[in-house]
């Protein structure tokens, strides 16, 4: 029994369990991220950090919809340089840190990758795909050539593992995933939120101040599963599943489709920080029952039909 381990290696990053928080969720401070880790996550993911501090969009930034939420927070963050102390604090406690970051130019991305690597992060997650700031910086994840070029530039700026977080808001996510792999990415995070909107009939206007926002939660899960499935069929680097993971069953579904780990976000609203412990517990008994000794044995099993 004790031979079962939830430990998994993703692109050189050793995780004690295959769960992380999704970027943008609770990643504003070292204190909150420590709580995520203490609850059982294998690593923590920072808020997406940009080259400059950003206040984000005005409220409403989040609205409850059927099966989940829409959010358009607008990437509030203290900037890469403003988060270094928080990263060091987490690293001082031995917590594996994945730094999510974004930029609007290749130079931004390169500089941020260097600064974050020097701060001691364990991996970088490139956020090519926030759907809420498109007007300002264009959604990089929708153009394969750009993704490859920027990924390659970042590859040249850091020795850390690079995860590329992709958007489901594209015609063909496989094409983009291949571009990331060609650019030198070590893993793909699939995916981000799905662009949508909510309208209030009493006030006869969009609810979100940004008009559109990203759909997260259970309603997103089938879309995210499909993304992981398709990418697993065509790239060779590991995949991190993200989108609507609330329970251990969801995690198993993503792993069967080809994910080596999952990121959890919206479920923290309903399940609290405990969601990480619950998923780990459920995964352990699933593996016990099915005589799996490691997560690796389960990864992608659904493809062997």
């Amino acid at each position, binding site marked *: 029994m004790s031979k079962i381990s939830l430990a998994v290696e993703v692109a050189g990053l050793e995780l004690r369990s295959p769960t992380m928080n999704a970027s943008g969720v609770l990643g504003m401070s070292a204190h909150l991220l420590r709580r995520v880790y203490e609850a059982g996550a294998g690593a923590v993911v920072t808020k997406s950090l940009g080259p400059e*501090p950003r206040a984000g969009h005005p*409220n409403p930034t989040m609205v*409850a919809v059927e099966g989940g939420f829409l*959010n358009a927070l607008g990437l509030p963050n203290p900037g890469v340089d403003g988060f270094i102390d928080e990263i060091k604090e987490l690293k001082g406690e031995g917590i594996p840190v994945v730094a999510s970051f974004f930029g609007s130019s290749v130079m931004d991305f390169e500089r941020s990758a260097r600064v974050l690597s020097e701060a001691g992060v364990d991996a970088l997650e490139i956020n090519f795909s926030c759907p809420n700031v498109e007007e300002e910086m264009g959604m990089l994840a929708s153009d394969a050539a750009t993704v490859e070029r920027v990924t390659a530039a970042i590859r040249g700026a850091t020795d850390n593992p690079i995860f590329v977080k992709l958007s489901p808001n594209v015609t063909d996510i496989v094409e983009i995933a291949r571009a990331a792999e060609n650019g030198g990415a070590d893993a793909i995070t699939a995916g981000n939120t799905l662009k949508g909107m909510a309208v209030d009939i009493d006030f006869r206007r969009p609810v979100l101040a940004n008009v559109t926002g990203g759909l997260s939660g259970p309603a997103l899960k089938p879309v995210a599963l499909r993304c992981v499935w398709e990418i697993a069929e065509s790239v060779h680097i590991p995949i991190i599943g993200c989108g609507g993971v609330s329970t251990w069953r969801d995690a198993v579904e993503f792993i069967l489709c080809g994910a080596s780990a999952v990121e959890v976000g919206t479920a923290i609203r309903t399940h609290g920080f405990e969601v990480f412990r619950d998923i780990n517990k459920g995964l352990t008994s699933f593996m016990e029952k099915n005589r799996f000794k490691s997560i690796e044995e389960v990864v992608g099993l659904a493809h062997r039909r």
Partner: protein
Amino acid sequence: MHTGADETRAATITRVVKETPDITTLYFRDEREAIPGQYFMIWVPGVDEVPMSISSMNDGENSVSVRAVGETTRALAELRTGERIGVRGPFGNGFRVEGSRPLLVGGGTGIATLAVLAEKMVSAGIRPTFLAGARSGNQVLFRDRLGKLLGDRLIVSTDDGSYGLRGLASVHASEMMKANSFDHIYLCGPELMMAKVFEVAEAKRVPVQASLERYIKCSFGLCGSCAIGPYRVCKDGPVFDSEMLRKVKGEFGLRRMDQAGRMIRADH
């Protein structure tokens, strides 16, 4: 996955009462009941959505009390009877009623949420003492309402001495705690005031519950914008007990995150 409270409802304003030169109470039709200390997210379409503590609850009519300081609060203060606002919530934990000889210390608009708590205590047979602090005599929120409820257990202090005791509420609270044996302290108001009273309460080993304010964006406990120490004010708070306050000592009364998540000095 949502309780009804998560969803925005359009609420019609039933009354607008100008309480002081810069504080306005908006009463609105709403069936949701709240625990004193909880808050609503109030949406002024086209302007912003902000967290506001409940300031009264009566048979399908709730209220919030707003000090007009910024664009959103000014827009709220200018609303008229019959107009509508978007309301979500109540959210957050609210105050626990504890102790048989509680002292409530409210400063400015912080008096509002403690007034609801005082009413709940009185109907539970507890007789709280209430120290209401304001800058000036014409700025004491709910003086009549609390006077009727508490009689001489309402003590007013004003910074300029134009009504009641003269000086800072935190100073008077400390003196009152020395002279009386309060067994629980409830705080809502400027953070520097709350931090000072908490310090005195800790020395006297009296438990405290304080309502904290930070920049709340999502109100669902997800975005982390309202972080203080290991807590989210929107979900784990806004009411912090002594144990929680001890864990945020490096920030409470000292530092807060701005909208971009940068640490800035707490200045009030």
